[in-house]
């Protein structure tokens, strides 16, 4: 049972990737859809998509830091 925290960390990393991938994928899909419907609004759509994208990425990165902490500090 000494290495059980590694399982937790690995599982957590997988879940983070699933969550972040789904989130970013949905954002990108919606942005591409919007731009295809209204090419003249490209700048506005890109601007509106950027901020939630970075906030989402921040959450994923935070989770990764905590996973790293689990591994390093046991």
């Amino acid at each position, binding site marked *: 049972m000494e290495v059980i925290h590694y399982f937790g960390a690995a599982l957590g990393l997988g879940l983070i990737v699933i969550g972040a991938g789904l989130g970013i994928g949905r954002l990108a899909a919606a942005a591409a859809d919007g731009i295809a419907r209204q090419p003249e609004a490209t700048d506005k759509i890109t601007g509106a998509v950027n*901020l939630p994208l970075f906030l989402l990425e921040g959450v994923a990165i935070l989770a990764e830091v905590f996973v790293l902490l689990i591994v390093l500090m046991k």
Partner: protein
Amino acid sequence: MEQVGDNIIRHVSNSDIDHPIFSFPHLFHIDPTHPLYSWLAAMSVTKHVLMLWIVALTVGLVVILPIQRYVQQRRLIPTGLMNALELIVSFVRDSIVKPNVGPKWVNSWAPLILTFLFFIFFANAIGMIPIFDVLGVINRFIFHVPANDSHNFINGLLHGGPTATGNFNVTAALAIITFLSIIIAGTKAHGFIQHWKNLVPHGLPGFVYVILIPIEIIGMFVKPFALTMRLAANMTGGHIALLAILSFMAIFADMFHSVFAGLGVALISVPLAAAISGLEIIVIIVQAYVFTLLSAVFIGMAINVHH
């Protein structure tokens, strides 16, 4: 094989507090255990502090000097490096600061945001240039300094093309500047009392405030905390990924007790590491942009209150 993990951690972390690069008590021949001078030992220059100085020097040479020279000359047409700088400056002012902060305050907050952008960009970018690793190779094989000589200057720098922004303390300092500027921006725009009142919308039933006020106060601290973590973790994460992929060579050679296993893995891992370096260059630019964009958004949120 156990050395791999140590190597990676030493590469991304700051130098040991007992072995800084310049130790001030050492330089001035002062007893570091003396109670009057213990602060001097704590002020010793580590890898990341040295990198911050180099970054400051680079920003001075590449950004401040050309702008000073441009301001002093009579002609209005920019030349050379100033062309690129003007492009960046006008981009930041017109599409990062102005939409968020608003036309009234754009000139008071654009300088801060620009400083963030240039400083973080250079700090990130210098971390990708393996200056000290090259110096270490020269040191080791031309000057024949043994690798375990911990008093050697170059050896102290080794295991790091250190990224100063990969250190949580550096990014925390930057985020604290953002935190204070949010308060200053709100205070200058609305007055001190009104800025704190603006944190929550008014005209709601009383019980909502019981939940809302703690949430808003926590949110006030979460914003700079997320800025800190995002930048530092991104810079550290990229370096760890690069080194881990390169370390596969050592791990496989050790596992099969043969050099050829390592060479075989090198055929895959070196191109992969090169590709990830390319990705890192994008990450460097995007993270500098994100930090400045989010700072501008947060400062703008304190100025243009939406309720």
